[in-house]
């Protein structure tokens, strides 16, 4: 029997990049194939070609042994291929049913939408694959994990039997990841074939039957989970040995540098986003914030850095009150900020690297003499920082927007850490970066900690927080669920806290049930 899907010699060039270089890939019926690779390795390009969003320059696609041309998503859908995109393709203001039937609507009298009929179908699918989704709920009201199930139902509704899941765990809590894996197993048990794209080694080892590793657009290896481990996979993925654990000694906390008391902050919709939280960060320690995205972390960081008004509460940096102070005052108090969205808030993409490196010192000597900027000084600073922080760029006059994500982040790190700072606030500092850059950023943060700087890190990657932080704050719905020392924290405990459950409560409940 021919494989469900076979790709032969797929090649795709973008200006200046060979994104896919003669890739061959087979997918067998009822198997979970993991496609592993760093960002920019060409995984998403390959899948977008398969789903008809890109046209390949060369290569052929065979489905069940038959050659097919896929020119758009409708062709892919017709061939039974479905894709859950990394960024969900859902419309928050519509219901689950509306989202699912969009493009394949049930109609009555040839004209009017037949919501009831479609909703029944959604309910059936939900039941069959134990997805537990309410067809009438508004998608915008659903938690991310359930939204992902809606995406899966969308594929099942179209009778897809080849499912592509693009980085499906990036937005989930550990418990939600477990739920997703159960769904994947139940899908495979009913004959679906799955391509699971990820750069997370543990997950790939846990869920897949076969692993194909991509690097720089090429297939560099194929293996099975039984025959491999994290180290081997990481080496294959990066092309050299990688240190997976952040090397760091014990922390030596000093006095309090960042003090937050009873802080309330609103979000854009004027709702409470940060709900009366208090904590402190001491010199020489790294405090990490764990939490599912959208539980107030973004607003908290914006409030700490002066980008969002504070409704109530106080913030002190090194003893100086900076509640509702301007970002410049906070910067001058000794705060470095590595923002969540580096392209929007961290850099002026159209400016050259040299100018981006002085965005927080441009008005001070020696960069400025009175009103006049000193080009010579700026260039020499830029030359020095580019070397020191290992920014790979053709020139210091290259616009920041032309750099890769890792190098953009290094420019920000260079700018923020090259002046004397007492506090570093880093939000998602390694999001979307390759393993090499992650290693570098982590080592910089640990180095600063050891120099006696207070470091405050927010990240959606629980692994990152667990390996980097000395103390972990878990946020849920704008409140602090708990603050735990990193060495005592377990993934299960943190996961429960991230979902708003106190592990002690959960244990008590389980006991009660056992007794009953």
């Amino acid at each position, binding site marked *: 029997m021919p494989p469900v899907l076979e790709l032969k010699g797929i090649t795709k060039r973008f200006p200046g990049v060979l994104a896919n270089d003669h890739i061959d890939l087979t997918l067998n019926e009822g198997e979970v194939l993991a496609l592993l690779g760093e960002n920019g390795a060409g995984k998403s390009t390959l899948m977008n070609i398969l789903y008809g*969003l890109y046209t390949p320059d060369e290569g052929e696609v065979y489905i069940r042994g038959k050659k097919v041309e896929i020119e758009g998503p409708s062709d892919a859908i017709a061939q039974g291929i479905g894709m859950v995109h990394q960024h969900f393709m859902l419309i928050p203001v519509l219901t689950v049913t*509306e989202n699912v039937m*969009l493009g394949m609507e049930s109609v009555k009298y040839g004209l009017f*939408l037949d919501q009831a009929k479609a909703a029944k179908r959604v309910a059936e699918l939900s039941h069959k694959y134990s997805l537990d989704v309410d067809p009438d709920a508004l998608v915008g009201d659903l938690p991310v994990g359930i939204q992902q199930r809606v995406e899966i139902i969308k594929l099942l509704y179209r009778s897809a039997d080849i499912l592509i899941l693009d980085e499906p765990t990036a937005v989930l809590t550990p418990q939600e990841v477990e739920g997703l894996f159960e769904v994947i197993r139940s899908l495979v048990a009913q004959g679906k074939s799955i391509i699971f794209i990820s750069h997370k080694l543990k997950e790939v080892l846990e869920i897949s039957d076969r692993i194909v590793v991509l690097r720089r657009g090429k297939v560099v290896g194929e293996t099975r989970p039984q025959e491999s481990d994290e180290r081997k996979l990481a080496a294959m993925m990066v092309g050299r040995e990688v240190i997976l654990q952040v090397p760091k000694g014990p922390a030596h906390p000093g006095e309090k540098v960042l003090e937050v008391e009873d802080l309330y902050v609103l979000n854009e919709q004027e709702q409470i986003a940060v709900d009366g939280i208090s904590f402190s960060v001491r010199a020489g320690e790294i405090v990490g914030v764990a939490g599912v995205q959208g539980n107030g972390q973004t607003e908290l960081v914006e409030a700490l850095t002066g980008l969002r008004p504070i409704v*109530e509460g106080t913030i002190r940096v090194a003893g100086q009150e900076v509640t509702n102070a301007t970002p410049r005052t906070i910067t001058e108090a000794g705060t470095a900020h590595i923002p969540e969205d580096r392209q929007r808030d961290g850099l002026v993409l159209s400016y050259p690297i040299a100018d981006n490196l002085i965005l927080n010192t441009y008005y001070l000597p020696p960069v400025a003499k009175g009103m006049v900027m000193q080009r010579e000084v700026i260039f020499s600073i830029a030359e020095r920082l580019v070397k020191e922080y290992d920014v790979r760029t053709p020139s210091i006059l290259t616009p920041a927007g032309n750099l890769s994500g890792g190098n953009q982040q290094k420019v920000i790190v260079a700018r923020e850490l090259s002046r004397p700072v007492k506090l570093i606030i880093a939000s998602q500092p390694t999001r979307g970066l390759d393993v090499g850059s992650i290693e570098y950023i982590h080592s910089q943060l640990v180095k600063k900690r050891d120099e006696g700087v207070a470091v405050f890190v927010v990240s959606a990657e629980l692994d990152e927080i667990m390996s980097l932080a000395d103390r972990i704050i878990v946020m849920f719905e704008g409140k602090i669920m708990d603050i735990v020392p990193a060495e005592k924290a377990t993934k299960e405990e943190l996961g429960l806290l991230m979902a708003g459950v106190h592990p002690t409560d959960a244990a008590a409940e389980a006991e009660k049930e056992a007794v009953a």
Partner: protein
Amino acid sequence: MHEEISIRKARALGIAFIIFGFAVLALFLPGTAADQTTTFTFNLSSSEAIEIPPLTVGTRMALYFTALLSVALGMWQLAKGFKRVYLVLTFVSLLFVLAFLAWAAKGKSMNLTGMLQSTLLRAIPITLAGLSGVLCERSAVINIGIEGMMLAGAFVSALVGSVTQSYWWGLLAALLAGGLFGALLAVLAIRYKVDQIIAGTAINILATGLTSYFSSRYLQVHQELNHPPTFQPISIPLLGNIPILGPIFFNHTLLVYVTLILVVLIHIILFYTRWGLRTRAVGEHPRAADTLGINVFKVRYVNVIAGGIVAGLGGAYLVLSSVARFDELMTAGKGFIGLAAMIFGKWTPFGAFGASMIFGFADSLQTKLAILSVPIPSQFLLMAPYLVTMIVLAGVVGQANPPAADGQPYEKE
């Protein structure tokens, strides 16, 4: 904290009601004599089946009554709070308008039915502009060129109507002109991804320039080219004879009925058909629609061209259903007020219609007051509809949620 904020808001509304009440007394009481009365009449013509007797009230009595009621509602809001406080806000606003009318018409009589009828007539072109906006923006194309499309429709309907001596041909020509301008906007915004505000502004300037030039060059010189026949009112049997409601709703020209039907029709299309679901999806998240095999560009083209046609109808209405001639710049900002109505109406057809009625009321009030020779300078009265637009947009609407992709061109990857 949640409660604190909502309490603050509730308190502010309560105080606002009380201020409304005192404002009635402070503004209107001083110039009113004790024995003055205001008469409201309700009959327009003999077509109604039943004559409703006029209502005469003491002006001061009316003022005291409305003021007291507002203050009382405000107190209740402060003390206990209403569940549906925005309904009460609407009611208090209405009381204020009534007090104003009682004051404006003191010693005279005012025909309320007539006023509401003219409110509807003045709301029609604004409604059509608003519907045009709803069609375009629901698919995420901002149409700021509605004003120009209406102007083009008005001009063409006058010219073609005069030449053929048929309002049908005039109407058809107006729809065509609106559709063409819609197609122009669509090509600029969708195909060439021109900034939609600039594209719309260009259309406004183009339409103003063209119609003004041809109007002064030909229509003003040859008056026979600017004399189209007009649609005549049709009274709907039975419904037209209902007192008050009959004259307000059921004694109009065809174009008025068409507009009212369009409001319902576009609502049904938008919320109950396949096309509507796809339009909304494209307006919210075009890439999501694209990944499901929906042709984003096609949906936008069709909606924008349809929007142009509806705007053209608005232009035709101004000429063929009311003044029977084209004047330069005769749309006088109705296209823009229509956009305001669309926003106030939260991008829904019925909402846009309701908002248009408020603007139409301000407009009709203004003419009425001029006739009653109220001691307010006429220039200020003329401002009324625009003032209301600004107040509504700035204050009452609060946070409006446009379609999420509104104004963003779509690029395939």
